[in-house]
């Protein structure tokens, strides 16, 4: 199962915890947890490419939410107006399409996680929350298909660097 899937399962449990009107605190934690499920899904694959086992957990801590957002925001632009030498283009059109969906969903989930954690005026409904979890699930499905592709590897690298 692993931590990412466990977090996603936990988020689902939080949405159905209250039988009648759901507590906002549970919905907020569900949204935040769904984002962290996706965050861990992605950062888990970064260290997997690093060959020194003792350094893998330290490697995972290099990932930063802000830089990950910037890398994800750049994906639509990189695909709309690609540079000829962009390594992301070594992937198939289907893989690039999946990456686009993942990057856009990552941004959406991160934005919602910040609202859930810090915007005290915001409120959610149960269906709204379940739908956000479905968005997180779609990232899991898409990532499973492309995680070993050049596009996914380049995306992970871009999340660590300042220049892409």
């Amino acid at each position, binding site marked *: 199962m692993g931590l990412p899937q466990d977090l996603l399962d936990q988020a689902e449990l939080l949405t159905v915890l209250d039988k009648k009107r759901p507590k906002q605190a549970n919905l907020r934690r569900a949204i935040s947890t769904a984002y962290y499920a996706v965050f861990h899904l992605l950062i888990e694959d970064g260290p997997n490419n690093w060959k020194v086992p003792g350094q893998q957990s330290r490697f995972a801590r290099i990932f930063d939410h802000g830089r990950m957002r910037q890398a994800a925001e750049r994906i639509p632009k990189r695909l709309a107006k690609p540079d000829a030498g962009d390594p992301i283009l070594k992937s198939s059109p289907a893989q690039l399409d999946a990456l686009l969906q993942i990057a856009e969903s990552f941004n959406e989930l991160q934005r919602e996680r910040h609202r859930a954690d810090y915007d005290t005026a915001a409120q959610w*409904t149960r*269906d709204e929350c379940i739908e956000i979890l479905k*968005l997180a699930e779609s990232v899991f499905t898409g990532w499973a298909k492309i995680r070993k592709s050049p596009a996914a590897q380049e995306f992970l690298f871009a999340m660590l660097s300042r220049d892409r």
Partner: protein
Amino acid sequence: MTLAEERAIESKIRDIVETVQRQNPDIVRARFQFEEDWTGQPALYIRITLRDAATRPSRLAAVTSAIREELRSALRNSEIEGTPSVRFRSQSETLDMPDPKWA
């Protein structure tokens, strides 16, 4: 950005949202507005109210992923930058929890 440019973008977004609504009988209402995100940047929020039948567990993911992709794709094709946040509620939820942003 000038006021005229802002209005042009808003007009494009309105066209896109209205077109998607017209093409999807599951949509009761669609609203959009710009809000500041956690980085201080304007973020486009599109709030879609769905017929209750469309939010059944067996349909929810298929309905919402199709609508979200239609919106994302149309916005990209119009060269409107930034990923929209597309939120969905059922019609009964919007009646149960009134909110001007969803009205």
